[in-house]
């Protein structure tokens, strides 16, 4: 029989099958040898299975929590990827399990489609297109309080570099209210209709923050060559706006904001994103933690179709057991609420049974054997 077919027919997980095929196909092996390898593989697999009643949750929590003590606290680190600041170490891990709406340092990784991936110029062009350029990036803004005017002195080099058209800037500036825009060579003069000091300063601030090109949330874009292709890394994140651009490989482009991933790509993507981000954080610290533990955390967080926090406002706070919730945080409130709602604690979890003083229903406590006395 064909090797692939044989392997496919085995009762093994997919990753083992793939490993087997990759390992065996280049080797010249006799049928007996293949049989032997497959038999041993099956035996090893069976031996390595998890045992029923194993408290995998606790093990996962310990496996992630224990290395936490060894992690650094330093928030900022010039990350391995380009020179973009990224939160790392323990703060990042906490951020992930907290499921924060916006991470401390949002970041995107943008891949390009097949035709543009190897084209440096296209990558650079895209980078300029994405990077949010504010008026203050390309011009010096001076407020003249005598004349009640604002002078914008444009930096030609910056204009050229960022491929910004002065006319576009003018049209943008014209959207400002109560302001007359006059072009004076390479400079622009803004004349407010209201001659008041405060109004003048307000307009300066407004003008500074105006986005003339690119995406507002993205502060910086760095182009890097990775293996054969160019990849864009951004400081700041705005998946929705980037996804619609041309020449972008939407299948691989991602952000480190888990909630944004959930919103744009759906809950499964968020789950994978949690796994990936957590693994990266741990790996960067030189700590090895099995993926299965992190998968469990990710599955727990995304179980109900939305990203839920590990903690009071998420999983721990939504437990069905009153005693378990009371033992975690805000004890008294949980008890009072339980009283008026007439809640019942079914005593199925770990904490509840510890509290009432009986064996927990996990591991050896979940096995109930009845010894048969006397022989038939």
């Amino acid at each position: 029989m064909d090797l692939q077919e044989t392997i496919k027919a085995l009762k093994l997980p997919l990753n083992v099958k793939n490993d087997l095929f990759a390992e065996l196909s280049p080797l010249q092996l006799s049928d007996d040898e293949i049989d032997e390898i497959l038999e041993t593989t099956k035996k090893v697999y069976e031996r390595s299975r998890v045992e029923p009643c194993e408290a995998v949750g606790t093990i996962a929590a310990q496996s992630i929590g224990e290395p936490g003590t060894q992690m650094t606290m330093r928030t900022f680190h010039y990350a391995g990827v380009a020179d973009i600041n990224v939160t790392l170490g323990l703060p990042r891990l906490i951020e992930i399990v907290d499921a924060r709406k916006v991470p401390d340092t949002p970041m995107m990784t943008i891949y390009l489609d097949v035709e543009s991936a190897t084209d440096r110029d296209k990558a650079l062009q895209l980078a300029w297109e994405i990077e949010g350029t504010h008026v203050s990036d390309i011009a010096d803004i001076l407020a003249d309080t005598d004349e009640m005017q604002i002078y914008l002195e444009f930096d030609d080099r910056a204009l050229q570099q960022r491929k910004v058209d002065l006319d576009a800037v003018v049209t943008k500036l014209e959207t400002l209210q109560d302001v007359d825009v006059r072009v004076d060579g390479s400079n622009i003069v803004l004349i407010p209709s209201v001659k008041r000091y405060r109004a003048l300063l307000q307009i300066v601030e407004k003008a500074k923050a105006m986005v003339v090109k690119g995406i507002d949330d993205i502060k910086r874009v760095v182009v890097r060559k990775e293996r054969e292709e160019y990849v864009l890394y951004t400081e700041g994140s705005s998946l929705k706006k980037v996804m619609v651009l041309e020449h972008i490989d939407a299948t691989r482009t991602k952000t480190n904001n888990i909630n944004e991933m959930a919103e744009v790509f759906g809950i499964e993507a968020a789950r994978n994103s949690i796994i990936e981000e957590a693994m990266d954080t741990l790996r960067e610290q030189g700590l090895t933690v099995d993926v299965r533990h992190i998968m469990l955390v990710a599955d727990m967080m995304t179980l109900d179709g939305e990203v839920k926090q590990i903690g009071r406002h998420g999983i721990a706070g939504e437990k069905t057991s009153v005693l378990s919730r009371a033992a975690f945080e805000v004890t008294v409130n949980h008890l009072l609420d339980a009283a008026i709602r007439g809640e019942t604690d079914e005593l199925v979890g770990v904490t509840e049974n510890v509290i009432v003083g009986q064996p927990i229903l996990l591991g050896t406590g979940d096995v109930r054997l009845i010894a048969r006395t006397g022989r038939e």
Partner: protein
Amino acid sequence: MSSPKRIGKIKFGLLSPKEYRKMSVTKVITADTYDDDGFPIEMGLMDPRLGVIDPGLRCKTCAQRAGECPGHFGHIELAAPVIHVGFAKIIRKILRATCRRCGHLLLDEIQKHEFLLKMHELKDKNYSTDEIVKNVIKEARKSTTCPYCAEQQKEIKYEKPTRYVEDSHKLMPADIRDRFERIPDGDIELLGLDATNVRPEWMILTVLPVPPVTTRPSITLENGQRSEDDLTHKLVDIIRINQRFQENREAGAPQLIIEDLWELLQYHVTTFLDNEVSGVPPARHRSGRPLKTLSQRLKGKDGRFRGSLSGKRVNFSARTVISPDPNLSVNEVGVPETIAREMTVPIIVTPRNVGELKEYIERGPLNHPGANYIKRLDGRRVKITEKSGAEIAETLENGWVVERQLKDGDIVLFNRQPSLHRMSIMAHRVKVMPFKTFRLNPAVCPPYNADFDGDEMNLHVPQTEEARAEARILMQVEENILSPRFGGPIIGGIHDHISGLFLLTQKGTKFTKNEVYELLKKCDVEKPLPEPAVVEGGVSYYSGKQVFSQILPERLNLTLKAKKCVMHGVCLKTDCEIDAYVKIDAGNLICGIIDEKSIGAFSGAILDGIIREYTDTGFQEASRFLDNATKLAIRSIMTFGFSFGIDDEDVSPQAQLEIEEIIEKAEERVGALINAYEVGELESMPGRTLNETLEMKIMQELGRARDKAGEIAGKNLGFAGELALDNSAVVMAVSGARGSMLNLTQMAGSVGQQSVRGERIRRGYYDRTLPHFRKGDLGADARGFVRSSYKKGLTPTEFFFHAIGGREGLVDTAVRTSQSGYLQRRLINALQDLEVEYDGTVRAGDKVVQFVYGEDGIDPTKSDYGKSVNVHRIAQSVIEKRENG
């Protein structure tokens, strides 16, 4: 043992005043506790019917003794209703959503019906109905007139914590209670209350239950004075005010005074329930300490829930300082005799063991393997004394229980806090020893994260056969060699074990037969000695590798790259020039030097290999190897001799000069950078300000300088190239036993830049770090660069900067421990109920979280560093078999 009853479930609910009275054993009317003779006053707060706390007395309600009597509730009839603070917010919601006259929920029948339907739908699916209740209240508040009695509704203002104002009229708790009484039963469910068991008016107290005395025991001080519990104090206050209120009302006091007293009563009841309500000044003890009332007893880390109910205290435990003993097995723990004499194991007397047990009893409690107590069939416990021993031994009967002292071979649990993972509590076998410390094999330090600088550890003696079986099968040290975190060994050699074997397995080591026997004397070796590696002048010598092979299990085959492998181009394998290719063939170390990669904790490939090769006896083989390795390593490091001194950091004067020069040049370049910055010639890097650019460049320059200095120092000390095996620091760093190149650099080369938050040191005086420098000085030395080495010694300014950098590290650790501790607590709380079911799914209760655990059903502990099956290894072994015929 009888099987105890299991609590099926616990229902929560509100009690009605009627029920309070029904379960009460007495009405409490006097605020006094004891009379002049010290007897409790009837119908007082210490009424003997409320339970007993004094030993010797019997409870007047249940006739049990102190300790057996659980205590009984009494009650206080409140002169006027008061609000229960815990329900203040819910009371507000209900007030706003119901009619002020007829009590109906302010929604018409159709709306009610719709909400109710939705609610039931959610309840059937076991979802939260909070959202619906919120909407009900929101909708109800919108109606200005009652759809049932057409009463005009008024806005109700809520003033924290227990004041409700309607139309600038204060609503008295009695009024609120009246309104709530009118709410029809049918509307209760929509308000989010349990319709079958709860009436809203019960949230306003008319009767206050008095907790039994057993929950508020008074203590007698040395001078005979009684000191009452905080709760009793509070109850006294309540009763006093309650009485005054009643008297005043009966005497027809003016409304103003009545209201004041009412509010005072409300205050006392509020603080009795919760003394930390915002807006209420906490009730204080005479000394000024806030009272610990009901809520405070439940709350927080040391509260009832987390402190007493989730964390239980145990007997049969011991704690003392730990110290190392490499002659113990990893599975053993050395227990001081003094502790062994105190701790006991209950043994049931049977015809088989009666003789042995009699011996223990005869020896009495003072001679070590003795016995301390016996328990007779009628349940009486008898203490064994030196004198009574012989007598008791005579009368010993089957079925009695002898509490025998701890002896060699008993299984005990050993633990070091913080217990961060399951390897923090492991089962060991007892080895009773002299002196006063617990002794353990240093190879088990990594999982406990223990060292011997004064650490203490706890020991627990399991008391039932089931517990001992579980401990032995699941918790013994050898069962925990592999970590579930990453599927590799977490137990392994540390420090001297690694250095010792590293020195032993160097090329060119040779030992005579006698020396070999001396080295292996303590090891448990079955293999016969092989042919000697070299014969010189008629004397046969064995190589260190041969000696090491003696302790390797015979079936072990392994290849790996040692730590010092430099990964140059193509691997020469067995011909490796620096002997970094470790090959073990059938239990013989063919080539390569043993170091951290082979036997270290967290990475030991040999242990991993043994466990995978010996599928049935892997753990025993592995622990046997560990025991042997620790003994061999200690013996060999003793024969070589190993010490560390300041002269290990001596570099030649010439190297010293080179280092000086490198740093000098680096400082010059830094000067040039600053110059360029000051005259405005420095180009800023993309996305960085000029300042940041300068700082980054300086940091780079100085970092490079330190590394170069370290390189020179390293070369001079024999770190690179030909290893200086006579330099302990080098041996430790190269073998991975302790320390690193960086430590060597700092000791012999230059300490380098000190930093705070990843930046050069900036803080201190205005525009400068110390008054020793000019304002605005950006130079290396003014911003925390330490050019001296630790050996040479630091200048005063350098020392100061070093202390700044060191302080940051300390703060970091302090903050980190609390943060990661909380993270772990949250993770455990969220995941602890997950379990693999018999069908392979992972579930929490009845919710399926994963259909196959980890997508492949593999236990990470048994996985090969995360891989489910190492196909490559299997294929290679089959191929090898073919090649070998």
